């Protein structure tokens, strides 16, 4: 099932890409314009992904024995944590948002207790802030601490 979804997704992606590529001027084989490479690539991608998709629908895919050992609950939590991190990074600031996301990801990863993840989150955030912002002069959001 998973391979069908993966191949179907790539087929859809290629098709959508080709639809938008068709809106660009193709030119000709002798004098290609901005749409030439996108359209040729799009057609090739639609053909190859379509073939792979049909093969997987017929049960002839090459990943039939792939077992998804992914813990879906933890995957969802991980993605949600990262999304929240991206949202709060600028308003809250680098240090606080990194402490929060790192603590959450350490807990999602199964680290027990609160002291170790707490200390690790705090130290890592401050150390990386000092490395990037102070030592390398990379501007990082200061948020409510700024």
């Amino acid at each position, binding site marked *: 099932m*998973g*391979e069908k979804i*993966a*191949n179907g997704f*790539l087929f859809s*992606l*290629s098709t959508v*890409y080709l639809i*938008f590529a068709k809106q660009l*001027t193709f030119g*000709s*084989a*002798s004098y*290609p*314009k*901005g749409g*030439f*490479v*996108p359209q040729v*690539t*799009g057609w*090739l*991608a639609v053909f*190859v*992904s379509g*073939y*792979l998709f049909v093969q997987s629908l017929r049960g002839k895919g*090459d*990943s039939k024995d*792939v077992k*998804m*050992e*992914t*813990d879906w609950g*933890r*995957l969802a939590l*991980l*993605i949600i944590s*990262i999304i929240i*991190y*991206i949202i709060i*990074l600028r308003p809250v600031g680098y240090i606080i948002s*990194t402490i929060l*996301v*790192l603590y959450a990801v*350490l807990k*999602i*990863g*199964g*680290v027990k207790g609160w002291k170790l993840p707490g200390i*690790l989150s705090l130290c*890592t*955030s401050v150390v*990386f802030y000092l*490395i*990037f912002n102070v030592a*390398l002069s*990379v*501007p*990082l959001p200061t948020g409510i601490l700024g």
Partner: protein
Amino acid sequence: MDVLSMLLQGFAVCFTWENILAVIIGVLVGTLTGVLPGIGVTGAMALLLPISFGMDGTTALIMFAGIYYGAMYGGSTTSILVNLPGEAASVVTCLDGNQMAKKGRAGAALSISAIGSFVAGTFGLVGLSFFAPWLAKVALRFGPPEYFAIAILGLVLLTNLTGKNPLKSFLMVLVGIMMSTVGMDAVTGLRRFTFGVPELMRGFEFGVVAMAVFGINELFGTLLEPQEEIKVGKVRFRELYPTRDELRRSVGPILRGTLIGFLIGLMPGPAGTLSSFSSYSVEKKLSKHPEKFGHGAIEGVAGPESANNAASSAAMIPLLSLGLPFAPPAALLLTGFIVHGITPGPTLIAQHPDMFWGLVASMYIGNVFLIILNLPFVGVFASMLKTPANILMPIVMVITFTGALATNNSTFDLILLLILGVFAYFMSKFGYSMAPLAVGLVLGGTIETGMVQGLIICNGSFIELMSRPFAGTILGLAMIMLLATFAKPIKRILVHSKED
């Protein structure tokens, strides 16, 4: 000036405290990358890319190169001690290396692996020192059609050599090229696939894409899937000496592995992995006792470990002399060059001799550092494996996101990192390799520019383009290989349509 005097000049460039420190950091991070299974060499290089922004260009590139060849050394340690390859290129070392460890010969396997890596790495560098300037001189005569042809052949070869299914690899190359078309068209200035999003105008940043498909992908894999508990045995310094018989039996495999690795390293694709497997099969065929392979034959460690190190030196040649990266780590090195305002290619050696020869000299020095690091401190590196992945990977995640943010100070890059990371995680599960996508993204621009400018030079005629001797031969070869790849699916479709 001849090669030797230029190389001496390179050593003079390299012997500053900043550059020596960059060599040490590079080979240390590389060795750790090789040792720790969760972090790949491309991911590690991508993570350190933003840190290099404030560095001098030569210093930054010296550090990146150190990570690349350092990872080849580190990969063997875990293969031998715990039967766990840190890098794909060290998978084959597990077969005999771990068997030797089980028989109490772990020290000998590690020292032969380090000696072989040093010899092969040094020979590879001698090849690089002489071959790259020669190729660069030849390439000065190349025009856009030749670059177009080499890039096409590179991608076709990569398709055939990566992953189990060439069609899936080809599709990933196409996805990479599709991504390279996003943003401002370099030839016509046309905006493509930007959908009014200003961040898409600059296209996909390779460093961010590499962090996502190699870094975040590995993070998800390590955090979300069950990990086996790793038990690491101790290796004492006095146990590192191989016997005279083991040394004698290793000489041939080391020399053959060096040659095989160097030749395969020149080709596009996963050169390290291919060269180590090729060397193993050659050694097995040449051996008077092939039945001993898989049961602790020293030849099965010496050959492959030498091969993957020679390959990593040779893989630099197309990048430094043509400006074409055929593997993801080389593509990251290219990004490193571009970030510091330098375009690698045939003119690199003439225009920036200090940078080129400084980089080559640093690799000689790095090889010496690696053998010093890897023999006495092998136990220390192996003990790093005890670091729980659920602690290490979240910290790596923070470096990745901070690095992506530092690239353009853009929240959009963080969103891209997450989306592409999730995409890569699921696609990797179903046999889609990310290396062709990364190389397709980098070479997509070369293909488009080479083709459009090539057609202008050739008066809009594909026949004239194909009639240029070098471009025509290379493109012809690429077409034959592409047709061979597609022959099977086309035949299947034709058979089905007849049946229907």
